């Protein structure tokens, strides 16, 4: 039964991830006084890419071919671990597993970025790794604030604990810390700009420059899924006082929408940071997490 629910929820997350990405895009456009594309545009892009031919470099090896699948598989597997419907304590829903599954995908994508043999790819890979290295301690610290309270790294129990506790100062600190991590991890302004292919600013996009057609579609989709996973973690673990019971589902959806709009606001109201200011940005997140630990 657990496995079935887990599958349903993975499918749900995977299917809805582009929608959330589209909502963020539209909200951002509205905030900038543009009409923007519709919220379903990401699906259309995906369809377009699916039917395009692809160009593959002569330099690349099989790593380049399998990397998109592993990136996608990592995202899907991680999506199955997020405790939305199932909060049962089966031995699968572990937060470290989730983080390391995402890291597995990133590892292979960085390898693929080196495989093409162009400077752009390598630069994208190097920067992605740079950000990932800095994000990791901040991410773990912020998650730890919840895990230490719940005395477990089981996501279901952590979510339940968060849902049943009341709003406190510790949660305010922890949530702000995790939100900064979320921005960095999903490649958003002020850390990375998801809309640019400009050499000076790109990070994530640099890695995927060599990809085209369906493989690019897979990578896009997986990135959307990863973004939704991070938003869901934020909603489930860091916002206490959940409306548990019958309204849980609607509550989660509403909160995800709110967070998406909040991301759009944050993106519109800030500038992109210089790459070497990112450590400071994440150091603030670490400090907030430590404050949350103290405030507990």
């Amino acid at each position, binding site marked *: 039964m657990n496995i079935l629910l887990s599958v349903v929820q993975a499918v749900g997350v995977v299917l809805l991830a582009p929608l959330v990405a589209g909502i963020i895009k539209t909200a951002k456009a509205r905030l900038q006084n543009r009409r923007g594309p519709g919220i379903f545009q990401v699906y259309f892009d995906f369809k377009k890419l*699916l*039917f395009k*031919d*692809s160009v593959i*470099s*002569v*330099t*690349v*090896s*099989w*790593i380049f071919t399998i990397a998109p*699948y592993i990136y*996608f*598989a*990592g995202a*899907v597997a991680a999506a199955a671990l997020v405790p939305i419907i199932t909060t049962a*304590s089966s*031995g*699968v829903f*572990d937060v470290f*597993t989730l983080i*390391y*599954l995402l890291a597995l995908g990133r*590892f292979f994508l960085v*390898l693929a970025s*080196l495989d*093409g*043999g*162009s*400077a752009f*790819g*390598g*630069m994208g*890979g*190097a920067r992605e*790794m*740079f950000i990932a*290295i*800095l994000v*990791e*301690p901040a991410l*773990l610290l912020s998650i*730890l604030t919840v895990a*230490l309270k*719940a*005395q*477990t*790294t*089981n996501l279901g*129990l952590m979510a339940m604990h968060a849902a049943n506790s009341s709003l406190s100062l510790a949660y305010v600190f922890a949530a702000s810390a995790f939100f900064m991590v979320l921005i960095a991890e999903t490649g958003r302004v002020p850390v990375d700009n998801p809309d640019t292919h400009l050499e000076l600013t790109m990070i994530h996009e640099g890695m995927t*420059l060599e990809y085209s*057609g*369906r493989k690019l579609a*897979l990578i896009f*989709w997986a990135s959307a899924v990863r973004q939704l996973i991070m938003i869901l973690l934020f909603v489930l673990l860091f916002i206490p006082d959940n409306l548990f019971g019958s309204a849980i589902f609607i509550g989660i959806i509403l909160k995800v929408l709110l967070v998406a709009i909040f991301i759009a606001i944050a993106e519109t109201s800030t500038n992109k940071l210089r790459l*070497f200011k990112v450590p400071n940005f994440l150091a603030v997140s670490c400090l907030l997490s*430590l404050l949350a*630990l*103290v405030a*507990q």
Partner: protein
Amino acid sequence: MIASDLYYLMLLLFSTGVVSVFFTGSHAKLTNYIAHSIALLGSTVAILCAIFVFMQGKMEVVLPLVLPFGPISASVDYLSAYFLLILGVIGTVTSIYAYGYSREYYHCRLPLMAGLYNAFLLSMVLVFTVSHVVAFLIAWEVMSVVSFFLVNHEYEQQVNTRAAFIYIVMTHLGTIFIIIAFLLLAGGAGSMDFSQLTGNLVSEKVRNIIFICAFIGFGTKAGMVPLHIWLPRAHPAAPSHVSALMSGVMLKTAIYGMCRFFLDFLGAGPVWWGALILVLAIITAVIGVLYAFIEHDIKRLLAYSSVENIGIILLGIGAGMVFMSKQLPVLAGVAFSAALYHVFNHALFKSLSFMGAGAVLQAAHTKDIEQLGGLIKKMPYTAVFCLVSSVAIAALPPLNGFISEWLTFQVLLFLPQALTGIVGKIFSGLLIALLGLTGALAVACFATAFGITFLAKPRSKRAEQAVEAPAAMLVAMAILAGSCIILGLWPQGMLMILSKTLGEFSGLDTIGLVSRDWYILAPATGHSDGGISMLAIILLLFSGFAVGLLLHSIAGKEKTAVGETWTCGIIPNYHMEYTATGFSKSIRLVFHSIVHSHYETLVNANNNQYHGRKLFYHVRIRYLFVSALYSPINKAIISTARFMKSIQTGSVQLYVGYIMAVTVVILIWSTGW
């Protein structure tokens, strides 16, 4: 008893291996096959011996050797058997590998190398099994000296000799502390036999001194920061299969020594013991992986990564000691099993990496990854095995490295139960964050190492001409890669062994280590139902992969065109590829206070300012501990020697004068004036 027969057989085989090279020495090929076959047999017997001990219980024998201090007894309990198992597995594989790799050494003193190789295995077996203080120290010393000669094998290169001397000095420094620890213990117990040694008979103060000495002594051998400086020099200097053995097994002799002292002899101590280990462990892990990341000599990179992994192992041990001193046996059991699991894992994947590096070295004749590239097409199998080892070292699921790292994370999470209050929380938080940093750096490090070595276009002629390694080496690597996968998929088997290994020590409770459901890894920490299931992770990954394939094929057959990589209209060449130095640049900048790389210079080779400039980019790293700790000591020793030199001029008259002066002083003093 089968186990004791097997034990004698094993010792006999390794000794025969040492002797055999004297008879076959004139014939290189014969030496290679005979000496390494004997080592292979001996290692296989070691595995069997360990298995029989696990099945039949502790084994004790008295070796037929009479030394002045009495008979040498050997006892193989579960802890010894566990380490003997590691030695057996790694020894078997390196011996197979050596068939192929030794071809490089047909004209480079092969008999010496093969004989020392057997002696090295023999000495490590003795270190793991003897149960007498003097015998242990002799075995320990033989191991150090033999490995010194192996490190120094290619003495034509001055860098190797220097590495070997630094190694022998450091390892003896460690041995001094080990001897002190043993003598204090034996003095208290009044016996040199391991079974009589206990920390309960000495005073609190002496116990603390014993702890510090054992920690420094074994920490030196393990390569703990700041005593690690020999490791990144010595391991790359040795022949690759010996490097694999040194990293895979020899470093573990130190871990064995620590377990023996902390679990068996000393028992639970004050909290600061564990806390001290934890602090040094996390420093070791972070420093090790940082230096590994910025390194571009492939074998040095792996050596630094060993430093990092020793840090992770020590995290488990340190946490276990904290839990022991607070009487939390279940958590202590989990902590020590995390450490010992990582010991096994590290032995597997680090040996595999060193073998891969050896294959690359043999094929391309360079250890500098900036010269490599594109090897995945020339050496497809080696590339696959190296990818497996990279994923395993980077602790990514679903391979074995992930499991021990996960266990370590769990242990650190429960640390506040022993260290209560806000300090414990912050301590645990910082440890977890830094372990996360270590993990992320390891991912980046091995993405670079694999990516630059094997992917894109070859960066030099040597890399272009590389060919696949011989079959023997591939078989050896395949065995280890398979073991990494199996230990990742089915960790329960390993936990069963660990539960037996650690169950014999008081202060540890390992009954809950093996969970009820075979597919779930959930160390019963008594406070949660957290756990992971590798089976589920695999299933999820596969289904994700399948969904990806499905989406990929939803629109019918894909039309692909083949073209050059887009480089803005220029024909791509290897100069455009990213380098390892470039890859780690941003990290060097962020961590510049630890990684002093301000020796970076851009050299313009010809004088024209604008056209046809030939640029060279040099990076020199100033190592923090070398410049802050070792250089001052060096300088002090040299200036003392200078001062002594001015006294010791070598002139006889002056010495007669000294004798006169001393005699006068003594005469005056003896009159009681």
